[in-house]
């Protein structure tokens, strides 16, 4: 069995939610907030929302789409915001631009929607990440599988989804290690295809375990 040149080190991430001193009571205010809120706020309402609500597999993508649907009753805009796939972004600047552009396009088509008051305000929040090493190191795929099975939601979300912001790659920590440290390019590619936006973290993890089992059996 291949022994990696460097081990995979497992971390777990916890987030505390900071309540920012800003709220939106209508779409115009949401647009303004999206344009100038902190990057940590864009992260909280998109990337981190997927982790917070990973158990919702249908019709939930991010906090913004949910608010537009539930509090403004604008299903078209909610659908457009919800279809923005965070996995397409390796930085928050591009994601912010697309969120603002989506709202702008809607407001151009429906200018009177800007001032319609929502049932409940949208509260801008942001994340503070606390990262802790789990003290686990895998040198082989079998060892990796052993620890993957024991990995909690915070750890999987961090290595699989949040990693692309750190790596600035359309990839994840697992795929990078499979490819660069173990030379398992095919497994890396299959891992990148796992769709965490339509699956739970447990489902995505089970998918990855199946891929690894197949690789180990080959």
């Amino acid at each position, binding site marked *: 069995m291949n022994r990696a040149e460097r081990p995979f080190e497992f971390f777990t991430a916890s987030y505390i939610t900071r*309540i920012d001193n800003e709220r939106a009571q209508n779409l115009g205010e949401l647009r303004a907030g999206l344009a100038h809120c902190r990057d940590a706020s864009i992260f909280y309402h998109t990337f981190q929302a997927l982790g917070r*609500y990973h*158990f919702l597999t249908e*019709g939930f993508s991010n906090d913004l789409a*949910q608010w537009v649907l539930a509090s403004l009753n604008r299903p078209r805009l909610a659908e457009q915001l919800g279809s923005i796939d965070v996995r397409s972004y390796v930085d928050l600047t591009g994601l912010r631009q697309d969120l603002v552009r989506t709202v702008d396009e809607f407001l151009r088509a429906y200018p009177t929607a800007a001032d319609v008051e929502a049932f409940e305000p949208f509260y801008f929040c942001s994340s503070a990440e606390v990262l*802790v090493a789990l003290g686990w190191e895998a040198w082989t795929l079998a060892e990796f599988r052993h620890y993957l099975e*024991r990995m*909690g939601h915070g750890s999987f979300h961090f290595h699989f989804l949040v990693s692309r912001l750190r790596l600035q790659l359309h990839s994840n920590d697992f795929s990078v290690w499979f490819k660069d440290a173990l030379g398992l390019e095919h497994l890396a590619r299959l891992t990148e295809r796992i769709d965490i936006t339509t699956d739970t973290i447990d489902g995505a993890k089970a998918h990855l375990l199946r891929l690894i089992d197949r690789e180990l059996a080959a």
Partner: protein
Amino acid sequence: MTPPAATASRLMQLDDYVPILGVQEIDDLRALAGRLTGRTVQMVNSTAVGGGVAEILSRLIPLMQELGISPRWDVITGGNDFFEITKAFHNALHGGPYDARPQDFETFLAYTAQNRQRLSFDAEFTVIHDPQPLALIDARPSGKNHWIWRCHIDLSRPNPRVWDFLRPYVCRYDGALFSSPEFSRQLPIPQYLFFPCIDPLSDKNRELTADAVHEVTGRFGIDTDRPVLTQISRFDRLKDPVGVIQAYQIVKRYADCQLVLAGGSATDDPEGAQVLAEVRAAAAGDPDVHVLDLPPWSAIEINALQRASTIVIQKSLREGFGLTVAEALWKKKPVVASAVGGIPAQVIHKHTGLLAHSVEGTAYQIRFLLSHPSLAQKLGEQGHEHVREHFLITSNVRRYLALFLHHESHGRS
């Protein structure tokens, strides 16, 4: 009804939560706590028993101890005059009328000074709960310790005089914790979202056998062969029990259902007794409306009533966090609730329950769920997962650990 004989309840340990959370999440907690081993934490509040804060602390402290942290829980003391004033502050911060006199503030500060002398404040992390001990920030020693204010109440519409008095103390903390963004204020210090929590192993939330549930429904004459709609809340106008009856009466035109309104004892609360009378009048002798005035030691009964329900309602006009919603979701019940206070954090509309804004809307959502049982089941199951992730005592421990580590690495603000 008389209270049952006291039974010794065993303190829960982390391993007791493994069947609920999985070993992975407990591993994560241990890893986080590993960086805080031996660190000292002080929790300060105003009561050792009774009330939600004391209940949470009594469960939080042993779990922190088991994780290798050195927590201490101190309770401030004061005379009746102090607690009358802090009760008035509490109501005023919730927006109630209060004509504060200068001597009220003096009394508040005099008892604060007494508690400063009586208690020691040498912990690395000090968490002060609610307004009663707020001014203890005066006792903060110089050094690298961190002081956090945990506000369990809704500050969105405070009485200006009381808030103007308290605000300068709040601003001297390193951070403030609120149960909902809606409850927070514009402050120059970091504010964090800290949900309250339930304990899945407490009498109110632990698994019950079908026989135990049946015993309770039988005792109250509830027919479990027909749909049961339930609202658990004290008899208070802000919980809108009469609005719940009106919604039920609309639903009843379409479905042969029953309504259970179960709340705390109204014997020591004149307004509660009046509301209870109004509720009974609104029920107008309908045998399918069960108005249950329960004593405070009814945790098992509440648990059983929630488990026997087809749909749980929380039609509050104004709400604190509304943890009865989390209790119902934990039992996988579909919930129809008002979008007030902390409820929208628990009921994600169309994902973990349904939100409503009126009597008619509440009735419509109930009818919809009664005619779509598979959707109702899905909402309940997703609600259970939502509670597992965010509203259990273990999530609360994790949040505190993360907060301490974050503040330690970022220093005093």
